[in-house]
């Protein structure tokens, strides 16, 4: 049977309310969690092979374990609801349709790491999700799931919802922390990692919405069950956002062992109008592009890594055989040029220049050395910046040109 952990309630009317959440077993994971010592929960999460579902795919339990042992003073949990990776829309569904699973996951996670304040950073454009989430937080306070002495456990947790103001870089965890502190969203040099020195100088765990929504299910049904749903290195299911040239765009929750072909053709209904497949971006716009012949890969973190791309945020963008790849690169390059925060020179300069070169190629004004210049600039800058933003931009720059070079060359006038 197909397991739906995160999306199982989506079809229910009023799925966003505390009443429906409780009727379907909600907050049972929390009661189990309070019966355990905090360290045992982190161990469960480690055993579950839950990996971060925001983009980086880092093992969640290991991240929690980086908080210095015996730390005195505040520790913060921060939920990254600054969904922004092009092609991704799963967290919006979770916030609107099942906000209590996020709240329950937050309480358990905060208890595990010893946090008594949790911040939820919601992207500013998400007005409806924010309103629904705010209502859910109020309901949880009124029912005693948030605030002082939750369920008589002696554990206290306050939740603050913080709205962003429009900047992709604030989805990067240290950029998010800067923004949460009331500054522009400039990422910070690591180390120190946020788990050691994060928001307001205190140990901070930043986790994606979907990651935390999994935690109650791990508590309810056990780490082994969760791990068994996935591959050897990644447990559970995840929500794939599928868009572009497919018959049924939408969110599909599937085990991470699903193949890209099955996702596109069985779940999303294949391509419309009898068109052929040209290319797929499998993990948000920062993931390297795959050709039509490269889609027999599993959609887990390691499966896509071995295929030379990445699972990223699981945003799958499907392109049919009418798509101009140079034009697609221009659109993607415009995004990175616009969203570079400007802090590191290689990123600030390269994203701007590469957009200009991609644009002139599309306009038929490219020069024959442009393609190699883009590849050279992309390769030199990778790994030289404070955060992974530029590395994310390099994924499409290099892969679009290497895999579809003849299409770019056809647009460049022969001197």
């Amino acid at each position, binding site marked *: 049977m197909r397991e739906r952990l995160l999306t199982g309630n989506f079809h229910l009317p009023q799925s966003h309310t505390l009443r429906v959440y409780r009727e379907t077993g909600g907050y049972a994971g929390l009661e189990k969690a309070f019966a355990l010592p905090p360290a045992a929960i982190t161990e469960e999460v480690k055993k579950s092979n839950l990996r971060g579902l925001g983009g980086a795919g880092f093992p969640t339990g290991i991240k929690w374990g980086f908080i210095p042992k015996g730390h005195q003073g*505040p520790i913060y949990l921060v939920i990254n609801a600054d*969904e*922004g*990776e*092009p*092609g*991704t*829309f799963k*967290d*919006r569904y979770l916030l609107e349709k099942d906000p209590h699973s996020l709240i329950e996951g937050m309480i358990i996670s905060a208890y595990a790491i010893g946090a008594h*304040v949790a911040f939820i950073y919601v*992207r*500013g*454009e*998400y*007005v*409806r999700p924010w309103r629904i989430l705010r209502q859910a937080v109020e309901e949880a306070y009124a029912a005693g799931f948030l605030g002082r002495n939750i369920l008589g456990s002696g554990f206290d947790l306050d939740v*603050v919802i*913080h*709205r*962003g*103001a*429009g*900047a*992709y870089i604030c989805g990067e965890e240290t950029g998010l922390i800067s*923004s*949460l*502190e*009331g*500054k*522009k*969203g400039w990422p910070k040099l690591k180390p120190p990692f946020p788990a050691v020195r994060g928001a*307001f100088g*205190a140990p901070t765990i930043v986790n994606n919405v979907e990651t935390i929504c999994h935690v109650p299910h791990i508590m309810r049904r056990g780490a082994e069950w969760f791990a068994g749903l996935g591959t050897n290195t990644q447990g559970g299911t995840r929500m794939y*956002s*599928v*868009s*572009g*040239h497919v018959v049924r*765009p*939408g*969110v599909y929750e599937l085990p991470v062992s699903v193949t890209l072909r099955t996702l596109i053709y069985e779940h999303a209904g294949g391509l419309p109008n009898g068109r052929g497949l040209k290319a797929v*971006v499998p993990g948000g*716009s920062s993931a390297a592009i795959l050709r039509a012949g490269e889609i027999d890969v599993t959609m887990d973190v390691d499966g896509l890594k071995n295929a030379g791309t990445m699972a990223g945020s699981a*945003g799958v*963008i499907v*392109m049919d055989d009418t*798509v101009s790849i140079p*034009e*697609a690169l221009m*659109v*993607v390059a*415009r*995004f990175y040029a*616009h*969203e570079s*925060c400007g802090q590191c020179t290689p990123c600030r300069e390269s994203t701007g220049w590469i957009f200009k070169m991609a644009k002139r190629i599309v306009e038929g004004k490219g020069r024959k050395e442009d393609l190699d210049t883009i590849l050279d600039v992309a390769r030199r800058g990778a790994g030289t910046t404070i955060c992974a933003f530029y590395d994310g931009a390099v994924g499409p720059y290099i892969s679009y040109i290497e895999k579809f070079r003849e299409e770019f060359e056809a647009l460049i006038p022969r001197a």
Partner: protein
Amino acid sequence: MSVAGAGTAELTPEQLAEVRRLQGLYPDKRAALLPVLQLAQDACGYISLETEAYVARLFDLSPAHVHEVVTFYTLFFREPKGRHVISVCHNLTCHLLGAEDAIAHLKARLGVEVGGTTKDGRVTLLSVECLCACEMAPMMQVDDRYEGPLTPETIDRILEGLQ
């Protein structure tokens, strides 16, 4: 908010109480800068240099710090905007499914370029990066809500509803 001059902000006692509440939510009150700027913008329509200086005083911050923050984020407006703001996504999925046609249709119907505001002050038209609603591509944000998939017909219907 009483408006002493165009774009000049001075908050009401109720709004100042809300500022203090927001500042009290964080271990460092400066963390409330984004929500307070949002509050000031909601009250005043946009954030002028005078508003930046006023907000800076509420936080014991320099006007330069506030200016740096305001100019970093796309949702802060530094000039008066229309009564409604339309932001069309031009990122990859929307591009594949016709964002450029949608933008061309909006430009023609509104008689403005992207970045412009209609003469009657009704609508400001913007094109923006991914709003993370690719399942309804091509799509746009109209004030607080998401609309899509866009066709000339759906766009016309939406525009009719904006006064």
